[in-house]
């Protein structure tokens, strides 16, 4: 019989998920076996366990979204012109909305099993699958670039600030990151358009142009600034704390060069809170921000999500909910695995 202990918490409590959080139940667990030897639960079993939970979670998500969506006042066919009853009836019949709700749900599930998210109620020339296929890559590209940018710059700036604590470098980084945190994207994005597109005319004010780099600079920056600011702040405090810990003092006493101390010994543990912060944020970043997409006229998922809800485009909203839900589950799992890989305290027993 093995006694399983929860993994060690992150180094700082700043952005950390509390140990009591259910998120931790499925983390890679440190177990003590009968002989008292530490060992980890195998990755494979862990993955299976995650999957077993993912399917019912997704099902509940679909169930709730399906019925909540239908409960919203109005229907996909509500317009300022009230349709004559016979035309409304034809429309409802075409989309099976004339059937009882449970039957509609079964239809939906049946199609879903075959990977069919159904036709869009609003965009009559497209199916939801097609809309997703067109918009997901756009959001994914912008989100990934913004994410990489966020991590590299945020971590670097945070580390620099920590190393030069209370110097002008620190103050500058912290001031800018505070600005980044307090200014919402619906202020930053139009401001950037005003400066770089309208006034200076250096960059396009909007559009995607098949992912032309010039079209990506502004939206990616607007998106990255917000997260970058938070990352820099978290990184700074976590790095300061790590630098004050015993093992760093030991490394310093051994006369290791600073570069090695930072990169090899301090960076990894200092990154943990950043990962706890970015993990949940990641899905949000890559599935599109409605503000950024609206301001820059980008054909991503964020616009579909909001317009879908406003138009009562049931199938589009459901489809996107399922995709974002599945991605959230997937990436939470990946973050947990990363967490295990990066935290030496969890890897005992190897």
């Amino acid at each position: 019989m093995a006694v399983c202990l929860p993994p060690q918490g992150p180094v700082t409590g700043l952005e950390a998920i509390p140990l009591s959080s259910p998120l931790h139940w499925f983390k890679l667990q440190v177990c003590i076996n009968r002989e008292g030897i530490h060992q980890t639960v195998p990755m494979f079993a862990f993955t299976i366990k995650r999957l077993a939970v993912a399917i019912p979670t997704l099902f509940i998500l679909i169930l709730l979204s399906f019925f909540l969506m239908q409960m919203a006042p109005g229907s996909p066919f509500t317009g300022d012109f009230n349709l004559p009853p016979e035309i409304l009836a034809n429309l409802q019949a075409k989309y099976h909305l004339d059937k009882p709700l449970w039957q509609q749900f079964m239809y939906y599930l049946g199609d879903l099993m075959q990977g069919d998210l159904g036709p869009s109620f609003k965009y009559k020339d497209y199916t939801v699958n097609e809309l997703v296929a067109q918009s997901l890559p756009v959001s994914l590209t912008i989100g990934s670039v913004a994410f990489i940018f966020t991590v590299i710059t945020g971590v670097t700036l945070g580390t620099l600030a920590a190393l030069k604590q209370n110097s002008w470098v620190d103050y500058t980084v912290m001031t800018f990151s505070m600005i980044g945190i307090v200014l919402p994207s619906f202020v930053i994005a139009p401001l950037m358009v005003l400066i770089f597109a309208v006034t200076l005319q250096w960059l396009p004010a909007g559009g995607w142009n098949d992912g032309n780099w010039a079209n990506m600079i502004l939206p990616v920056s607007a998106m990255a600034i917000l997260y970058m600011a938070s990352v820099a702040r978290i990184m700074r405090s976590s790095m300061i704390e790590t630098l004050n810990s015993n093992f760093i003092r030991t490394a310093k006493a051994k006369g290791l060069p600073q570069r090695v101390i930072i990169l090899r010994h301090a960076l990894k543990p200092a990154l943990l809170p950043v990962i706890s912060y970015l993990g949940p944020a990641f899905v949000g970043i890559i599935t599109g921000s409605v503000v950024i997409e609206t301001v820059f006229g980008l054909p991503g998922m964020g616009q579909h999500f909001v317009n879908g809800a406003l138009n009562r485009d049931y199938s589009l909203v459901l489809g996107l909910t399922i995709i974002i839900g599945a991605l959230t589950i997937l990436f939470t799992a990946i973050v947990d695995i990363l967490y295990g890989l990066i935290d030496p305290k969890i890897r005992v027993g190897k």
Partner: protein
Amino acid sequence: MKKPFKALPIASMSLLAIATSAIISTTASAAIVPEGTKLASVQELVRGNGAEPASLDPQKVEGTPGSTVTKDLFEGLITQDADGNVIPGQAESWTVSDDNKVFTFKIRDNAKWSNGEPVKASDFVFAFRRAVDPALASRYAWYMEIPTIINATDIVNGKMKPETLGVKALDDKTFQVTLEKPVPYFVKMLAHQTMFPVPEAVVKKFGDDWTRPENIVTNGAFTLKDWVVNEKLVLERNANYWNDKETVIDKVTYLPITSQTAELSRYKAGELDMTNEIPLEHYKSLKKQIPEQIKTTPQLGTYYYAFNLQEKPFDDVRIRQALSYAINRSAITDYILKQGQIPAYTFTPQAVAGFTPPATEYSKLSQKERDQKARDLMKAAGFDKSNPLKLNLLYNTSESHKKVAIAISQMWKPLGVQVTLENQEWKTFLDSRDEGKFQVARAGWIGDYNEPSTMLDLNTTTHGNNDGKYSSKRYDQLMAKSRVVTSDEERAKLYAEAEEILAEDMPIAPVYQYVTSRLVKNHVGGYPLNNVEDNVFTRDLYIKQ
């Protein structure tokens, strides 16, 4: 957009030249470039389009963004010139039978689809049948029911097969429509996309995917090159269009920008040649900076407040009159909207063709006199400051509706009215209004064809958008009579009488007449300033040097 409900107008001999007569016009659908204008070497236009079109299939389109684009891609039997007058489109001429029920159209010999195939009468037959086919479930099927095309209603109801619709291809180039009752403005209605042809062979081959750039075949001045949902629609000149030689623009790109401020930024950054709208809060500064780029056109529509006659005390005509009189309409148009909107004292706007709305009695008074009258009426109805009337004013969430609502609630204050403002998200709002869950609600109505009945029918008892449930026998009878009288003058008299009844019963309080305002760059020529239905065909535009 707001659409009219079943208007069933019957017989008018003079609205259009009817009776067995061939109508051949030399006016063409084309850009009219004044002599001496130097055209730019690159003829490419970028237009803001407000939102992503719901579809590009003429029989599935709903909403303005889609209808604007389909009007560039397809052409009906007739079309409109820059001022909105009927001119021949795919049909070069047409005849009307003696009983005004049979319309026969001669399709141009050189009318071709973009793939070079001839446009056939059978394409029209196919399109008209699709529009009423329950399997396609067109939202606009009612548009085929209004002119009473034979069996249209029974087909929509599923009682008859689409093949029984009163349309026929007499030969490849002759198309015939038969109506149950004479409709004076049937030819005018053909400018609507629901009655545009679709290429039968292509639609059958590709099914729902036929509107994709790689499949689509069009008969209008342009054809579809690229389509990225929520980003852009790129249209290129259709070399097979019958009047292509007079088209100037080579390429037009539509951007579905939903945010007005984002649209304005892109206009200022030079990425757009024409916006779809102008944000209210920027209007004043734009008027100072670039007044010559602001183009304002009167629109066939009225902004109004509907009273719920099912709810006490709004069943009391004195209350409705008092509330309407107390609205200082010119203060709203001059100080809040400021875009050239016209104060409305009738439901039909002045922009409508062939009818001048009467000067209703209360419109002739000064605002001071109206206010006095309003106070007296309110008092007579038993309300004053010591016994205030508490009412709920419902509008859909939007800054400009809010501004108007706040102003009007201030104007009502001296009457002893305490207003609670309530805003709801669009579809929730529509649901509340439709189900009569309101006391006073903001509303707007934009006509579908250029004729007063498109407006006035709304106040008839059975109209689907008569949200306040106003019911007047006299009004209903008048509107019914207007469909059977034969002369324009007589009909106009009836319409004027209907307006007087509205002014007396005040089931709604008209506030202002809509205008369309957009920014158009100085290098764009041919922008129409008199098309009250806001049909801006790209084929009529050109780029100056």
